[in-house]
């Protein structure tokens, strides 16, 4: 009895620590975003509640927050969609069709995901500059898709390889083409896998920083992560309230996604990292 009590206590303390560790910075962000001043922790400065920060971020033109948000959401959605689509085609081929050297392809793709981004961005910049694509959506989208495809492929391959091959054969017997089998038979069965891939690809694109930093020059294509580093004040006075309000608006969807779809995200992450 004593042992199990001890165990419960240990687990409880551990969970409390874990929650504090993970949530405190996030909660701090939320609190500051509703405060008139970030200095409420210093003695003598009271905490006063306000919506002004959100108002400034949502309505104020000069911060370009809404532009950044639109760019981020659009780019991440399109990237995730393309990654799932292109990744599914390839994953289907790798798991079902006689493609020569598919093991090499998987390894190549794995190796590619280990590349440091800095090794690509210098040349990508020159490439996009030569095409006149710096600060355009396509100039950011194409590298994003290529960057996220490896992970998408691995997750999808791991899901697809669990779908019985008999389903395909039944489809072939019915005279379906491979393409029809993919979207009529495999897609409906693999919805959870596709959904986790989509979520992960979306989060990866949404969080990407270095390409966005180097391949965009202004609010017309700049994404949130880069935009938020541009929120600055004069002589070291940073508009913390605005930054935190913008952060809260940005991360709220991500936080909700993480909590609601944790099962899918964890599934995807696990399959992407440890081949399931």
């Amino acid at each position, binding site marked *: 009895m004593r042992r199990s009590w001890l165990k419960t206590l240990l687990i409880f303390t551990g969970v409390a620590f874990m929650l504090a560790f993970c949530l405190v910075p996030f909660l701090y962000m939320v609190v500051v975003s509703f405060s008139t001043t970030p200095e409420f922790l210093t003695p003598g400065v009271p905490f006063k509640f306000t919506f002004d920060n959100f108002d400034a971020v949502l309505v104020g033109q000069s911060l370009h927050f809404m532009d950044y948000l639109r760019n981020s959401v659009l780019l991440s959605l399109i990237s995730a969609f393309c990654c799932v689509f292109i990744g599914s085609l390839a994953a289907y081929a790798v798991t079902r069709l006689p493609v020569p050297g598919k093991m090499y392809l998987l390894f190549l793709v794995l190796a590619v995901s280990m590349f440091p981004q800095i090794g690509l961005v210098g040349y990508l910049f020159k490439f996009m500059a030569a*095409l006149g694509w710096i600060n355009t959506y396509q100039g950011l989208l194409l590298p994003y898709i290529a960057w996220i495809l490896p992970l998408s492929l691995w997750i999808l391959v791991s899901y697809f390889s669990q779908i019985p091959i008999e389903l395909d054969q039944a489809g072939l017997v019915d005279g379906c083409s491979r393409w029809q089998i993919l979207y009529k038979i495999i897609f409906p069965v693999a919805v959870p896998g596709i959904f986790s891939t989509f979520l992960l690809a979306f989060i990866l694109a949404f969080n990407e920083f270095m390409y966005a930093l180097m391949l965009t020059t202004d609010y017309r294509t700049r994404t949130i992560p880069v935009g938020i580093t541009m929120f600055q004040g004069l*002589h070291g006075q940073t508009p913390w309230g605005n930054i935190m309000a913008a952060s809260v608006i940005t991360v709220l969807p991500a936080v909700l996604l993480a909590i609601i779809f944790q099962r899918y995200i964890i599934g995807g992450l696990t399959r992407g990292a440890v081949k399931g």
Partner: protein
Amino acid sequence: MISTRLSSLRLAESICLLLILLFLSGCGQKPESTTITFAVGGAPAELDFWQVLIGEFQDRTGIKVDLLRQPTDTDLRRQGLITSLKAGRSDPDVFLMDVAWLGQFAASDWLEPLDTHNDLDLDVFFEKVLNLADRYQGHLIALPVYVDGGLLYYRQDLLNKYGFDKPPQTWSELLRYSLVIQKGERETNPDFYGFVWQGAQYEGLICNWLEYAGSNAGGIVFEDGRIILHTPANVQATQFMHALIHIHKVSPPNTYTEMKEEEARTFFQQGNALFERNWPYAWALHQSEDSPVRGKVGLAGLPHFSVGPSVSTLGGWHIGISKHSDAKQKSFEFMKFVLSFETQKRLALELSWNPGRRDVYTDQQVIAALPHFTRLRGVFENLRPRPNLPYYTLISQVLQRHLNAVLSGNSSATEALSAAEREAQTIVDRYAQ
């Protein structure tokens, strides 16, 4: 099977087509631009000012101007502009540059020469500033919007109280005054220090160091592909900076960890220091309504060592036009508008900036509102630039690290300067033609 082939073929085809189309779309020529894009950063009040100014310019000329808001952080602004310029973007057309970047921008051939436009009256600008910063290989490539220089702020009331009749002329006088007054003031205010300046590891440290070194007849010497930092004059000046903190203890111990412009300004403004080295912007803030030192502050040129003159590091922002601009003539019109007497006067009155035009400093209305301008003019004649090297930022990084090590007591001035010289030389060698 045929349908498989067809659909997958079609798919692959359409993806390839899409790619090709995208590629082609990039190659098309862009039409001549009817609007110009002006990149500028700063505090909200400054951006609001530019917004108003742009509106007026639009009303007057019919030329539409897009304001491209940049961050305040100087290095982020530089990186942003370089990305656009290096990529050959036609936007922004016209922008403000820190004086320390001009070397790099000019040498990279990103700036449109301005001398072809002979309707510019160059005599109204500080000749020294033009020669030090805005000319590159015989061409005028930028013009000063706003001039900055290091100044000495002092507490007039305290000098009077202890019987000193004028601000210190030399560094040893500054030290003597500081020691006496610090000792006296500590009895009522234990947090009181003699002298605050910028010693944290950042660009401002270089600006401060150049003023000590320059006033000891030293500085950064660059000749025949050799960079020289390790000289007796520089060592002595650096040792003096170290001594202010560690031996005489007239500068606070956080000088080398935290002191940047704002930290020094608030320290002084709270009444905790006798002297302060800062840029002109601090004046208006020291004299603001809620400032504890309002009406007690004096302004002077920086002190010097016995062998050298008083030196102020040249700072400030300059306006230039991109070589890739697709609206150069319109940009030039805008630039003329920004540099006009009226606009420059408003810059001074509304933002208390120090205009690049000399004639604003003699304007009666300006002097009435900003009496310290009469003294600034004299200071701006002693301006000393940072080395005009295209890779200056890299050299600065090296020097910042080593100088800060001296100030923190982790390294001797001799060691640090010879190490900095060696490291800086590797950078110089890398870019030797």
